[in-house]
């Protein structure tokens, strides 16, 4: 049993949900693809019009359903297509992380990064970093919780 568990942790492939803003990060991810930059296939991307549109409920839902990490990608500060959506996204995620910290619910599974449309490489690197760090963290315990 313990052997099996260790094996899972070693080979475990994290599932990452990514919310990428339409104007920067999504285009950045696209560039990574068209430039044939290799990055781990662990991320499922959801395009949102602005990182500011990512409500805590999306992140919470992904985490409670067992996603191992959630990634929110927005434009660099000052570059938001809607002027300040990314600043507000930052505040929202600070709040969410703060609450999860108080509750002891692994806020480190939430990642926020600013990735512009030209930063295909940064996108690939970020995904790789998230996958590596999440592997160290191990699978999301919520994956097994049916009584939520």
């Amino acid at each position, binding site marked *: 049993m313990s052997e099996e568990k260790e094996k899972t942790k070693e080979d475990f492939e994290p599932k990452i949900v990514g919310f990428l803003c339409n104007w920067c990060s999504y285009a950045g991810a696209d560039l990574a693809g068209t430039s044939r930059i290799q990055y781990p296939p662990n991320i499922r991307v959801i395009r949102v019009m602005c990182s500011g549109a990512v409500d805590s409920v999306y992140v919470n839902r992904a985490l409670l359903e067992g996603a191992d990490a959630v990634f929110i990608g927005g434009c660099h500060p000052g570059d938001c297509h809607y002027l300040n959506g990314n600043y507000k996204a*930052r*505040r929202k995620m600070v*709040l969410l992380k703060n609450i999860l910290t108080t509750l002891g619910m692994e806020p480190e599974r939430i990642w926020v990064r600013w990735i512009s449309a030209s930063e295909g490489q940064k996108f690939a690197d970020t995904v790789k970093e998230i996958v590596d760090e999440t592997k160290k963290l191990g699978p999301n315990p919520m994956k097994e919780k049916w009584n*939520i």
Partner: protein
Amino acid sequence: MIYGLKIENDVPKTVNNFLKQLLESGKVEAVLAMQETPSGRSAFPTMISDPDKLDTNVFAPLLPVSTGAMVSRLTKVKGSKKPLAVVLRACELRALTELLKLKQADLENIVLIGVDCLGTFPMKIYSNYPGDEDPTEVVLKGEGEEDMRTACLNCKDPVPETADLIIGIFGTDTGKSILLDTRTEKGQELINDMGLSEFGNEKDREKAVLDIRNKRDEARKAFMEEHSDIIGVEKLLEFFDTCVNCHNCMKACPICYCRECLFESDVFDVEASKYMAKAKSKGAYKTPTDSLLFHITRFNHMILSCVECGLCEQACPSDIPLMDIITAIAENAQAEFEYLPGRDPEEEMPMVVYREDEFQDVGEG
């Protein structure tokens, strides 16, 4: 200015007479204040226009609903055309202040009369108060703490600082007189021609207010320490184990103002196949679904404005002691943004403003 209000008969009657004077003088068209129901088993914020039906007890130690939310309901569509005096406690005033920021209330023609709060009992205890004693007399004597709601024992501030006029108890000799503290011109106008004399014991008042604040602060710290063990997935699931997903906490919350909560919207009306997918993803899935998601998301949506009135806890049919965790969540989240709900009507809510150079550790790296 702080004036003294001489006690005739008893404290609640004195305040009732004061409100009656306001009503009869025509300065206000109606009063919204706690009035005991005929059975005496409960009291509710009641709109009273007829001086003969004015039989208020603003010190009734009970918080059935938040008067702040009631003012929102009365004025959300349009401000009041005629002057209305609203009597409320500190937590209710804080809730109203937050609702004002959210544009859910209009204070046109409304005078806010705050009352010092001595603490409240749960509805279940108030309505069947043991013995022959009157619960109001008990709290006016400074007793009854053992029965009080946790929210009250840990109250951040029982003095309604931002009211137009404060009816003060702390630092007064309730056998002789209580005080009227006018904080705005609106409040001053109410009592201008009543021929009241100055209170004179400002020092006593200051000290008593400081004392009660310190006492509550300490209780609050000890309370948070005591419940700091509710942390981590296992403990949290255990804490919410008895939640039946009725959303009563949200309905009772004065801050949860959304006309249609996301959790009661079509978003969560999904076809059977989605439930099947949930069941398959984890092998088993409890129904109703999304209880924990509801609570954590609700905290995200309201906690920065949480005035810690404890109405959520009082509304829970499963008696989940919500304040055990909400106190710490509110404390930490509000500290992160250096925000105190209800402190100042002009203060901007944290989620509508930002600074370019803040929280650099989130987003970079």
